[in-house]
């Protein structure tokens, strides 16, 4: 929301996306004679096409052509390399590393695939998953959907809404698309103004010091792989009829009925979004709760209950076994519950398989370069983000299978730039106490240990937990409930985890994440005066533990 990464204090939006065509740049040095980046702008009106094509771009540009002149010529080259650092992938991590390294004085090149809404071996786009098919579009759609709740709240406050508001799906999608294109353009501009050379095309490592992009080979000192990941489909019969999260952010029309398969945060977010946008949502999860065990169990149970109360048809402990296309083009999903007979969900317009993501490590020449991968295909790196097996290859972001979050990729990128070119040799990544939020309705936020993890790790634990109705919902009939939890190491009094399930949880938890970094005690937490009336003050007013554990065993309840 803050767009902090853009560093554009006070920019005005929305702006028409300025576009430029692919141009050939003839630079003074023959080595720098490369095909350079374009601001290729796919049509905003074809959100689901997946592919964009430059014809469409050219049509939409109409005279906006402007040839970028080569004003930036590489610093005097004292060695044989074209670049000190070459970055494959222009997502959050790659762009951050490239910009910072360049600002530190390194000669940096970066390649990225042409823009497309659905990620593939040929399509990507500057901004990466976060901007084009993750954080930003989903949050914008989350905002669009949240109006439904606002409306319900408004009615409880005496607003007499006469006609049910209608959502113009195309307007929403087009505005969303415009914003994503604008942001992708901002990424480009930021790279350019930092002096990074952009090259459009698929990068491939062809030697210890060489990278090939779009038919050209560059001699590079160091290589950074920041190619991210993309969704995978679980091997269900008929999976070809299902879509993945890249697609669901770009549906041409509002689906009347959606089936979401998978219990991770992406499925939870999409279930909430489509539920609030007015679709009938069936949410199928193999396990007994939503979300994975990194999230606190009480929070997972609570979140599931709240989704249900909001109207999501949540079905736990079920296995979808088959997706079939009906003669009318709609889909039927066969479901096998843990107990009882199989059943079907028919007439679905869309079936989403949100069953995992995997690193984009294929066809990059990684194997040939001796870059070791983990069993999920992620690049194995050390705490400096260096490949454990190939000396001058580095990797940041989702491709490393560490913590796949935008700000983490940004952190890894910053630290790597400092390590390589900023004179801070010991800039190590610290992945502890990273806050994480599911932007569902209500949101689920976590930083630190869950109750289960704390008990396992520490043995002696006090759990403070409180459910309450946020004041904004106080006048509603259904009184939705929020949950806050603080997990304390009872031996040291240190707080080891903050958890919240509430509409504003994402914004609330940030400051607590900083506090956790400080290693504060429960006493220090209690010494802080509340900000009244807020939901966040619940965190500083939890007086007695709901549960106590000693040596890993629960010793008291209530």
């Amino acid at each position, binding site marked *: *929301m*803050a*767009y*902090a*990464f853009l*560093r554009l204090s006070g*920019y*005005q*939006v*929305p702006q028409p996306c300025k576009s430029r065509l692919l141009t050939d740049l003839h630079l003074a040095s023959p080595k720098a004679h490369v095909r350079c980046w374009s601001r290729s702008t796919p049509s905003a009106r074809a959100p689901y096409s997946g592919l964009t094509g430059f014809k469409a771009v050219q049509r939409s540009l109409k005279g906006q052509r402007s040839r970028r002149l080569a004003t930036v010529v590489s610093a005097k080259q004292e060695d044989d390399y074209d670049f000190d650092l070459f970055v494959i992938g222009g997502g959050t991590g790659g762009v951050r590393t490239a910009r910072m390294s360049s600002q530190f004085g390194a000669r940096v090149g970066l390649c990225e695939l042409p823009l497309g809404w659905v990620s593939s071996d040929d399509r990507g786009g500057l901004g990466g998953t976060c901007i084009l098919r993750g*954080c930003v579009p989903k949050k*914008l759609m989350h*905002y*669009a959907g949240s*109006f439904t709740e*606002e409306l319900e709240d*408004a009615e409880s406050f*005496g*607003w*007499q*809404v*006469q006609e049910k*508001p209608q*959502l113009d799906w195309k307007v*929403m*999608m087009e505005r969303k698309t415009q*914003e994503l294109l604008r942001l992708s353009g901002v990424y480009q501009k930021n790279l350019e103004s930092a002096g990074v050379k952009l090259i459009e095309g698929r990068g491939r490592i062809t030697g210890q010091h060489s990278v090939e992009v779009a038919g050209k080979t560059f001699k590079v000192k160091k290589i950074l792989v920041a190619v991210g990941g993309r969704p995978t489909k679980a091997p269900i019969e008929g999976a070809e009829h299902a879509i993945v999260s890249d697609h669901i952010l770009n549906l041409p029309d509002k689906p009347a009925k959606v089936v979401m398969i998978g219990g991770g945060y992406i499925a939870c977010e999409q279930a909430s979004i489509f539920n609030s946008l007015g679709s009938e949502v069936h949410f199928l999860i193999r396990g007994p709760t939503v979300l994975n065990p990194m999230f606190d169990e009480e929070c997972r149970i609570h979140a599931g209950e709240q989704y249900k109360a909001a109207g999501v048809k949540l079905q736990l402990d079920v296995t979808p076994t088959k997706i079939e296309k009906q003669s009318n083009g709609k889909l039927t999903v066969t479901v096998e519950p843990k107990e009882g007979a199989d059943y079907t969900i028919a007439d679905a317009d869309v079936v989403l398989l949100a069953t995992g993501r995997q690193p984009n490590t294929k066809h990059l020449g990684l194997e040939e370069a001796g870059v070791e991968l983990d069993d999920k295909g992620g690049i194995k790196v050390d705490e400096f983000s260096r490949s454990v097996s190939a000396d001058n290859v580095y990797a940041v972001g989702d491709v490393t299978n560490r913590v796949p*979050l*935008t*700000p983490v990729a940004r*952190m890894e990128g910053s630290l790597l730039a400092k390590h390589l070119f900023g004179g801070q040799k010991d800039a190590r990544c610290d992945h502890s106490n990273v*806050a*994480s*939020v599911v932007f569902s309705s209500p949101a689920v936020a976590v930083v630190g240990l869950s109750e289960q993890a704390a008990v396992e790790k520490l043995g002696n634990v006090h759990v403070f937990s409180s459910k309450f109705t946020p*004041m904004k919902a*106080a*006048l509603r009939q259904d009184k939705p409930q929020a949950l806050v939890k603080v997990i304390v190491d009872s031996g040291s009094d240190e707080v080891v985890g903050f958890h919240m399930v509430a509409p*504003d949880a*994402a*914004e*609330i*938890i*940030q*400051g*607590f*994440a*900083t506090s956790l*970094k*400080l290693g504060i005690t429960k006493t*220090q937490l209690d*010494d*802080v*005066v*509340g*900000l*009244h*009336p*807020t*939901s*966040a003050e619940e965190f500083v007013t939890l007086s007695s533990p709901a549960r106590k554990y000693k040596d890993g065993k629960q010793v008291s309840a209530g």
Partner: protein
Amino acid sequence: MVSGHSSSENYDFDLVTIGAGSGGTRASRISAQQYGAKVACVELPFDFVATDEKGGAGGTCVIRGCVPKKLLVYGSAFTEEFRDAKGFGWTAEERPPFNWKQLLQKKAKEVERLNGVYKKLLRDTGVELIEGRAKLKDRHTVEVELSGGGTKTVTAKVILLALGGKPVKAPIPGKEYAITSDDALVLDDLPEASIVIVGAGYISVEFSGIFNGMGADVHLMYRKPLPLTGFDEECRQHVSENMTKRGIKLYPSTSPTKIEKRDDGKFTVHYETEGEKAKTIVAAVVMFGTGRAPNTKNIGLEDAGVKLSKKGGIVVDEYSKTSVDNIYAIGDVTERLQLTPVAIMEGMAFTATVFGDKPTKPSFENVPSACFIQPPLAYVGYTEEQAKEKISGEVDVYVSKFKPMKNVLSGRDEKTLMKMLVEVSTDKVIGVHMVGPDAPEILQGIAVAVKSGASKAQFDSTVGIHPSAAEELVTMRNATRRIKCNGKA
């Protein structure tokens, strides 16, 4: 200090608390529940508007402050939500009809429910709740004029004064025509004509946002060049711009001089703006948010020897003890920081000190505070102006103004302001300020970090939550300016 495990020697009670607001209720409950003290709590019968005869358990916060005002803030905020929704493709009515009476009824029901909760909390912990008007006869004796008739005299080893305060009107001719914030929360109808609000403390500013959101034509008059004296000046400037953009008419450097009632039932407000000729404006309602005064009259404080300040507040030491050894005072009546959670903190500290044998001073450092204007303002720690005055050495000021993501699509022309003050010599974060959606929610956790002594480096090492507004506070890279401060500390 006072051991109260068994019923005291010669007194009816170990503790008699006068006033069952946030502070008094908390102190009474904890004294009884945690320390086994025999406690009575005296409170006036319930009413929405506070007088010498009316009050109610829950006090200002629950009945005529935080709770009802926040409900009205929520209620009034939907106007802008309807507007924002359009930018996301919703074809909704620009402004559905709004039923003020219905909202006020629901609000009243919620307030009454909470009033009941307070009473129940007291009774459940064994506190004897006495309804009526209390008067000190001497330092150990309280006489209660019972609301059901008759009087009751009780003696106590310790007396706790938690009397709160109430709004006062600026002394100008015709002030009897003006209402206060108590009245504004129970207006029969939403005025369709203009509302003039006098004063620009947080209460006036919040009400101007409420009435503006509900569709009234709001005129806010104040003496200073900017609203919200005491808050960070850059934030005050930002809030005042937001208010103007949202349609509130601001009259800085302005004082009303007289209010007259007109034949049509409306009022003529005469006012003077610095450097301009005197003018008038016609208003359906005139509200004064011109300060609050402690409830210290006609309670017999003088007779018991309890010292008052010039403004009428009860003078207390660091442990909330008054000039009389066994009489303590907490909350708004002591004119320290007039906030609900502060009264609760004072109540807890009093209880630990007096019944827990653990002398405890409430700490007024880094108390976060908010103004629920729309969008809200919240902060913790020093303002830039305070830093200049109190810090010695240099302070880095980080300022970020950005368009919140929601506004990108809604098209709302409003930016969020965030500001962080860092002491250069120590790298300590000494103040954080925000004007923007969710500011109070965001600042609570930030207050924990600031109060715990977080450095800028520690903020920076925190991974952001993306996409949120709050992440901006952990990604402020370059100081906007470095200021020289001339304090002694």
